[in-house]
């Protein structure tokens, strides 16, 4: 089950916007507009779904949610461009799906400015004119040269899966003993508190590491992600991290009496952990209070470490700060849980 998630989620959690549906209202029908429309429809990002004359007609598509963008080319666009050297275009964006609309708008503007360049190049033909210097910015993406979104997502999602196994399965398991009453029977045996807790947590600790191992293999098989850093580093950190989340699971289980209760508490934590972990959105762009919260979220650290090690090849020394923090988490959460867990109810 977690493995299926690992295979499906990164594909779905892809920020790249494709197939933005666009309608073009061409009131000019000139060579230039023809060139522009060709350029747009040639792009992989856009689906030209309609090419018409009236803005009302195009608006209809937006209202029916069949299109995200309208490019309105006014009458006499070419003539203006040629005579006055400037011409204006109008872009309308359907902002219901904010991300798609926003990115679609940006893509479209890029295409238009590109088109603008082309026209200029065409015009700079007469000798004597020195060609306009054009500064072109090209970025080089380190550690993930192709900006492959999956490289970024897969390690993060793997962290979430390990967290679920570590924190929430263990919480549910102990609470189940409470609910079914088996804990009562265990409690009257000479078995010690720490023996019981260790007996409960060690299987999940191992299970968590196995999930991580399988996850690494799957991400290599399906996404071709090979860790830049050593796997030893990943697993060393994961072992510590699991101690912390197991402590969290234990803590949840000491506070809840029924499985429903612990499910709800776990779900609440999970939502916060995922959203404040920097998995989907960069922590640096969150408001200040959220950034502080994110610092108290163990998931944040593991995701950072995973990305650092897997993508950048960081060593144990590079993640020493993360190791320290997660160790603190482990001590505090487990300590709290053990204090709160009373074998004598």
């Amino acid at each position, binding site marked *: 089950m977690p493995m299926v998630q690992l295979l499906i989620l990164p594909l779905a959690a892809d920020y790249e916007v494709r197939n933005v549906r666009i309608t073009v209202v061409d009131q000019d029908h000139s060579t230039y507009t023809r060139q522009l429309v060709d350029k747009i429809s040639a792009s992989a990002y856009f689906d030209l779904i309609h090419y018409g004359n009236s803005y009302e007609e195009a608006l209809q598509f937006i209202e029916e949610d069949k299109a995200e963008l309208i490019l309105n080319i006014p009458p006499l666009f070419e003539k203006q461009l040629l005579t006055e050297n400037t011409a204006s275009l109008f872009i309308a964006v359907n902002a219901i799906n904010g991300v798609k609309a926003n990115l679609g708008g940006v893509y479209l503007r890029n295409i238009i400015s590109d088109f603008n360049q082309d026209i200029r190049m065409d015009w700079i033909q007469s000798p004597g004119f020195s060609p306009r210097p054009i500064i072109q910015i090209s970025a080089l993406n380190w550690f993930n040269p192709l900006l492959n979104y999956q490289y970024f997502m897969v390690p993060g999602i793997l962290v979430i899966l390990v967290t679920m196994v570590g924190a929430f399965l263990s919480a549910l398991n102990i609470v189940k003993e409470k609910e*079914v*009453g*088996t*804990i*009562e*029977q*265990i*409690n*009257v*045996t*000479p*078995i010690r508190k720490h023996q019981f807790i260790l007996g409960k947590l060690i299987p999940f600790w191992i299970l968590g590491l196995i999930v991580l191992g399988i996850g690494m293999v799957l991400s290599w098989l399906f996404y071709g992600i090979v860790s830049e850093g050593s796997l030893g580093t990943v697993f060393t950190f994961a072992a510590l991290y699991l101690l912390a989340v197991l402590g969290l699971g234990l803590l949840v289980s000491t506070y809840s009496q029924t499985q429903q209760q612990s499910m709800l508490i776990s779900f609440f934590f999970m939502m916060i952990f995922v959203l404040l972990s920097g998995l989907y959105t960069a922590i640096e762009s969150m408001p200040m209070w959220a950034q502080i919260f994110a610092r108290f979220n163990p998931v944040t650290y593991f995701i950072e470490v995973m990305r650092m090690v897997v993508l950048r090849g960081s060593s144990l020394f590079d993640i020493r700060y993360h190791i320290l923090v997660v160790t603190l988490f482990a001590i505090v959460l487990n300590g709290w849980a053990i204090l709160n867990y009373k074998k*004598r*109810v």
Partner: protein
Amino acid sequence: MHKSPIVVDGISKSYPVGKEKVNAVTNISFIVNPGEIFGLIGPDGAGKTSLFRILTTLLIPDNGNAYVEGFNTVNDYHEIRKIVGYMPGRFSLYQDLSVEENLSFFATLFNTSLEENYDLVKDIYNQIEPFKKRRAGKLSGGMKQKLALCCALIHRPHVLFLDEPTTGVDAVSRTEFWTLLRKLQDQSITMMVSTPYMDEASLCDRVALIQNGNILDIDTPKEITNKFENPLWAFRSDQMYKLLLDLQQMDNVIACYPFGQHHHVVLHQDQDVPEILDQLKAKGQTNLKAEPGIVTIEDCFMQQMRK
């Protein structure tokens, strides 16, 4: 050090319910003698389970002390856990483990094995052995109880606590269960059993009648029934419900309640039964019969509750 296996000395325990405190057990004291089957008899909510949980070190009493084999339940709880067997009222073995696995699991917890104490549990184990590969959750009620008893005995405890072991179990299994307990007595295991069934009280060596956290009486079942002072009669007629109402209205009747096929009627001393019969006939009762009733624990319990 107390010589008795179980000593309860002025134990009280209350639970917070909302803002109020509800007393589950109020200032209870008693002693259980070595090797006896001590019965706690009382209706649901009388405080039986609380008492069990205190004695098995699961609950800390608000006041008073309790000792099991001389060990204090609060301070020496770890010693107590080695020497007692506890069978909670609710089936609390691992339902997804098989009979065999449950037994070996609990044996391991006590650093022992099924083989080591086989002679103690063999009578019970023989009955569940045909199902040893079956998951505990799939057993019948009676079988579950036998398995639970087996698990509670696996480490040869000195004292066995059985909280309502026969609740929800059919009559045949109940009889079988009590036969098993009797056999365990030969192994000089002290047992404390609770039950809401009054008829099981006579199977104990001594019983404590408990109600609303208070002990009404402690004695042998025989003594308890002997203490019953008033004359007890069993009445029956064709219209049993009307008979009950009629009897309850009469001045010379202390109490009247249904008991099996009869109504048990408690009378004041020196009451004339034929006179009562005449009065009832006058009220239209037919086929009226009255005979001296046999006093049971239940009658004593009802009497104690009226006090």
